[in-house]
């Protein structure tokens, strides 16, 4: 039985889709069978970030409505044999996403894959609550910025009340993925520090992804950053996070810290 993970945040634009793609590819690179599921019905983007936008024939809604088989809707990644995508519908209304339908699809995926990673839409509406409903664990994507932290706090509350695990009285495993972190700005006191966000949200940290051009570059070419440039700083941070998801215990590295004197001069100019 595979594990179901929801990648969620409440706030939009903090890096849910980027993180879903990067973590999915990172786990698949460990030869585990991974499916990334786009729950953002009407505003799908995971297909684009994964570089599979032209290969979408059937989607999650088609499967739920019985218009296509799950095997017809799954798209195998061209680079990684064990990585699959289940796209969201671009045209259909999100009301087509029924609780029963979602349950059936997730149950089926869990049987076939080691990891089912659900990319949640922003907000706290039905799309977001359905994406988290069957999760065994949650990755809460947060930027070191006030509105993102507040929305994450709200989402943590929903994870503890609206999920099947919570309703059964079990403890929902939640992990913080801090994205777009700039260690230099945090050091200067102009950005919330890792410790600040951790203290406020009180959930364990699974990784710190540095603010980086490499993330945009990867989405430009339609490749998860862990595949586009595996040696870049954000990719290494995602690999680390994926290993922690898989249960490894690793010390957290704060990317971008310990710059040399030239780095410092350069950083000051850039800022």
């Amino acid at each position: 039985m595979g594990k179901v993970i929801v990648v969620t945040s409440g706030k939009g634009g903090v890096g849910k889709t980027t993180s879903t793609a990067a973590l999915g590819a990172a786990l698949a690179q460990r030869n585990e069978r991974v499916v990334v599921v786009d729950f953002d019905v009407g505003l799908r983007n995971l297909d684009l970030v994964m570089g599979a936008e032209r290969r979408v024939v059937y989607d999650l809604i088609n499967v739920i409505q019985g218009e296509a088989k799950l095997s017809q809707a799954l798209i195998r990644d061209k680079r990684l044999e064990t990585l699959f995508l289940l796209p969201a519908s671009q045209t259909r209304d999100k009301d087509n996403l029924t609780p029963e339908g979602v349950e059936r699809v997730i149950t089926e995926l869990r049987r076939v894959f080691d990891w089912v990673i659900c990319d949640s839409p922003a907000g706290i509406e039905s799309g977001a609550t359905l994406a988290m409903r069957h999760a065994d664990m949650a990755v809460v994507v947060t930027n070191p910025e006030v509105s993102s932290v507040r929305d994450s706090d709200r989402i943590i509350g929903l994870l503890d009340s609206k999920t099947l695990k919570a309703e059964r009285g079990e403890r929902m495993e939640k992990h913080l993925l801090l994205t777009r972190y700039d260690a230099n700005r945090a050091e200067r006191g102009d950005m919330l520090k890792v410790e600040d966000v951790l203290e406020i949200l009180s959930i364990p940290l699974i990784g710190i992804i540095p603010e980086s051009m490499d993330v945009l570059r990867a989405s430009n070419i339609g490749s998860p950053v862990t595949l586009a440039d595996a040696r870049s700083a954000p990719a290494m941070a995602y690999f680390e996070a994926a290993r922690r998801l898989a249960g490894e215990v690793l010390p957290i590295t704060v990317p971008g810290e310990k710059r040399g004197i030239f780095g410092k001069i350069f950083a000051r100019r850039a800022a």
Partner: protein
Amino acid sequence: MTIFNLFRKQRSAPTARERLQVLLAHERSSNGSDLVSVLREEILAVIAKHVQVDSDKVQVKMDRDEDVTILEIDVEIPLDAVSQAA
């Protein structure tokens, strides 16, 4: 830590942190459910049986930790109310 720091704007991150802590303490107690207000009413009723307290002197707060939720109850009882009850 150079002389240039004197001319720099004040650090904004501590302000962000403080604002969030105040806001979220409030939102956590109001969002979750009516639990906090129900608890507040019932606790107030129990205390009122024995001592006279002002209803706005009873503070009930929920805070979240990694493993547990902390229920904080803060009741201000005036000294003369205690002596009256005793």
